[in-house]
């Protein structure tokens, strides 16, 4: 049996991750109404990234993967960061 195929997450781990995701959703919604627009503009995408990371690591079971699959996601994140940075350099300093 290949590594990764047998590994399985406990039911309650998934429930705990789900609870964290729901709490973060309410937190980000509350911040958007309570905090200043400057705080919210930074907090909203940061919280979204934490939520995305939780989904990818736990729900998509990247925690059980090894090798190339584990590298693909940070690699994609770096590519997206480069793409965004270059576009915004162009937009901001033109």
């Amino acid at each position: 049996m290949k590594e990764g195929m047998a590994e399985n997450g406990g039911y309650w781990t998934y429930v705990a991750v789900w609870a964290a995701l729901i709490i973060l959703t309410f937190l980000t919604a509350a911040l958007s109404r309570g905090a200043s627009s400057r705080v919210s503009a930074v907090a909203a995408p940061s919280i979204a990234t934490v939520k995305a990371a939780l989904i990818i690591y736990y729900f998509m079971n990247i925690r059980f993967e090894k090798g190339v699959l584990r590298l693909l996601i940070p690699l994609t994140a770096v590519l997206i960061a480069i793409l965004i940075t270059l576009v915004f350099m162009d937009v901001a300093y033109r």
Partner: protein
Amino acid sequence: MDERAHGLGREGDYAGSKLGMWLFLLTEVFLFVGPLILYGVYRYRFSSGFAAASSGLSLGIGVLNTAVLLTSSLSMALSIAAVKRGKSGFTLLFLLITIALGSLFLFNKYFEWSHEIASGVYPGGEALLERPKGEVLFFGLYFFLTGLHGLHVFAGVCLLSVMSYSTATGGVNREDFVRLENAGLYWHLVDVVWVYLFPLFYLIR
């Protein structure tokens, strides 16, 4: 587990089909990243118009739909945890819950869109075109991105319906579940996309 049932060929298939699914999902990510960069540029240029347009969306429905989709991701993950334990009854139950929640998401989205379209807010709508340029751009991106995402949710619901059939008839089981796992990965990706769309459209101040 029986070694013969998992000969080299089978294991190779398992790793290969998962890698293939991930590569497909990453191309999907770039499908959404393109318009989101466009969103970033326009939000930077028309920040007041974007904030005004965003305040017209219902935060309540946005939070509700986010919770619905996150919960559907939980039931999807539980379904896969169940199939690996050989509990096909639970697998099917959790799959049906996922399908129901995905359909509820689309139902809410339908009401939200209907409400906006009825008040003349849709791409090219007369009421929208009278508004400032930033709001017109916001709603153009809103309808495009939530529409594209909605199509993905719909495709996911169809895919999971096929998986339910396979689970019920024994095609997906403890020994052979990579199709269900890949369908689950697709479902979670659709959830990840919404995790970004929600704050970008509903939470601008």
